[in-house]
């Protein structure tokens, strides 16, 4: 009698074991499919590469591109960012409304108000006065960047990267150049 009961218990255990195997296999398959089903999000890298390319075209060896200035040494309003920096914003998406946005703001650090610290011998560099700006692409993407600045990360919004560098003009005036790059391409990078 005891032996019979033991065999019955083993059978029940083996059924449970089989069920556990199926559950484990099912969850592994689900997790792997979910992981590999997600597209690689390369928009941040793309935005960084774009900023590198634009900064190389706006400034070379620490000096601003001469084409940025007109003959009277003011900023050239006709400077074509896409043409000068070899950019093409058409994408593979049909009826695309624009997947890229690019903005470069120029701040003159010589004219700006300087913040003075408590120590007399130390003068903080100013943030400068915005003297010129260039932009290309879909301007609506800029609002995505403002939203993405919050605490939560919104995956389906455009990816924004904001970087800055310093450069001099021909008269050694110091400029801070802030470049904002926003890339949408949501269909290809986010599920």
């Amino acid at each position, binding site marked *: 009698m005891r032996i019979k009961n033991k065999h019955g218990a083993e059978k029940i255990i083996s059924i449970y074991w089989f069920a556990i195997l199926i559950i484990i*296999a099912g969850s592994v398959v689900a997790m*792997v499919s979910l992981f590999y089903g997600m*597209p*690689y999000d390369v928009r941040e890298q793309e935005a960084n590469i774009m900023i590198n390319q634009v900064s190389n075209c706006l400034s070379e060896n620490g000096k601003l591109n001469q084409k940025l200035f007109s003959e009277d040494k003011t900023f050239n309003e006709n400077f074509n960012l*896409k043409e000068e920096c*070899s950019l093409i914003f058409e*994408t*593979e998406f049909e009826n695309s409304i624009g997947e890229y946005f690019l903005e470069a703001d120029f701040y003159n650090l010589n004219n700006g108000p300087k913040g003075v610290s408590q120590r007399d011998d130390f003068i903080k560099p100013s943030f400068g006065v915005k003297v010129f700006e260039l932009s290309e692409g879909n301007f609506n993407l800029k609002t995505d960047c403002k939203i993405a600045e919050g605490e939560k990360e919104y995956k389906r919004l455009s990816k924004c990267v904001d970087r800055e560098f310093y450069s001099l003009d021909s008269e050694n005036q110091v400029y801070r150049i802030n470049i904002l790059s926003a890339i949408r391409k949501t269909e*290809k990078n986010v599920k």
Partner: protein
Amino acid sequence: MKLNKKGEILMENVLFIVLNIIFISILIFFLFKQGSGAVLLEQTYSKQIALMIDSAKPAMEIKLNLEKAQKIAEENKIDFKEAVSITGNVVNVKLSQKGGYEYSFFNDVEAKAFPEKNENNEYTGIYVFTINKK
């Protein structure tokens, strides 16, 4: 009677271990198969190539190892020469009959792609990308 019982226990254990090994092997095979699938590689390579072209400068020649892609393309009866194509500013990687993945680049250059061959006119698994000014 005692001897038979011990033999039964041993057989059960052996069967149990064998079944477990088979189960784990199937899972590992599934994981590897998923990680090296045509769909995943098409996406990975097209994005990698697009980013590579984005960061390239005119007059550059870049060589990219696509041995994994070559193996999968051959398995799916796709000529390696047709695995990567660049039309305008769009990179297309096709490693299976049904598949194909496109990704665009923003660098306004003329990019061309062709597979490298050895002295015996066989594909080496390397793809050459030439970047020129438009």
